[in-house]
């Protein structure tokens, strides 16, 4: 009988200790817990491309990437049409979900940038890009020596990769 009473008392003491500890942790979390501060980035973040939209039926696991590097996959069509009345370029360029890097796309005509996207994150594509204000004047017709220039950015640090990709394209301009 005495033994049972002693066991119960010990159990009660243990429960009391656990309860008091839990209440103490709760009070600390509610009133004294400091939020985790993520260090300030080294670079100013680039805005996400406002014309970007999700790539339909895009799934799959991320590509394997070497340490300190990146792995990317691209979707694109090499035909680009500039609509002068809309002041925009119609195109297809996507950064599939499998990629591990954000992308930035430039349309370059004879060495001059006519349009530049914001950050295109994995899983997004662009079908239209606004022409750069103050860019070179274009006349209706076809243009030679045109290309996409794709730059890659680390999604966490915003650091630009040293490598770029250049893709020759066919560009036509319509009024």
């Amino acid at each position, binding site marked *: 009988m005495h033994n049972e009473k002693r066991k119960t008392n010990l159990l009660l003491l243990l429960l009391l200790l656990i309860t008091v500890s839990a209440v103490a942790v709760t009070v600390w979390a509610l009133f004294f817990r400091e939020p985790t501060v993520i260090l300030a980035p080294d670079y*100013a973040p680039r805005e996400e491309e406002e014309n970007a939209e999700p790539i339909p039926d895009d799934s799959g696991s991320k590509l394997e990437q070497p340490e300190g590097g990146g792995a990317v996959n691209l979707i694109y069509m090499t035909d680009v049409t500039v609509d002068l009345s809309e002041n925009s370029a119609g195109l297809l360029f996507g950064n599939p979900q499998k990629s591990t890097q954000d992308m930035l796309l430039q349309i370059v005509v004879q060495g001059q940038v006519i349009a530049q996207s914001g950050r295109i994150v994995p899983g997004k594509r662009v079908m239209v890009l606004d022409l750069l204000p103050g860019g070179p004047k274009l006349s209706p017709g076809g243009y030679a020596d045109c290309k996409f220039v794709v730059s890659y950015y680390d999604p966490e640090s*915003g650091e630009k990769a040293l490598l770029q990709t250049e893709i020759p394209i066919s560009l036509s301009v319509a009024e």
Partner: protein
Amino acid sequence: MRQLSARQKRSRLLTVSVVLCLLSIVVMGTVLCLTDREISAPFVPPEFDPAAQVGSPSVSEDLNYREVYREGMGFSSKVCATVTAEGNTAVIYFTNPKENTVWLKLRMMAADGTVLGETGLIRPGEYVRSVVLKGVPVSGSGIKLKIMAYEPETYHSEGSAVLNTVFEGASN
């Protein structure tokens, strides 16, 4: 009214204690989850290095002053590959050639990535002689010189390059 035996009283007390204990653990878990917050510190543009000087430095050959450039890079720079100490500073002669269109800064790190010190931004055509160190590394230890390029005005990244070298300690 029925009188409870001492045993029944203990049993009830135990039941209530168990319920209170479990309840306090559930509340604690919920509060811990709800208060687990992260705050992203905003980007703060780095300052220009007040010790930056205009021109190209004249550097002793012993310091192995050389260009850091690889094909495809949008910028080049010059720095001492032989890094020596002067008090609590490291002599680097970090140079942003005038042909560049980017702003540069250099971060000196230990082999494990710990930041030892960094310069401020320098414009094309400028250089800084040395960088102040938070802690002087052991002579002969491996260090990394990370050169970071910024697009002027926007502070967007224009890429980076890392030079692995050895800290030589105090110069003779």
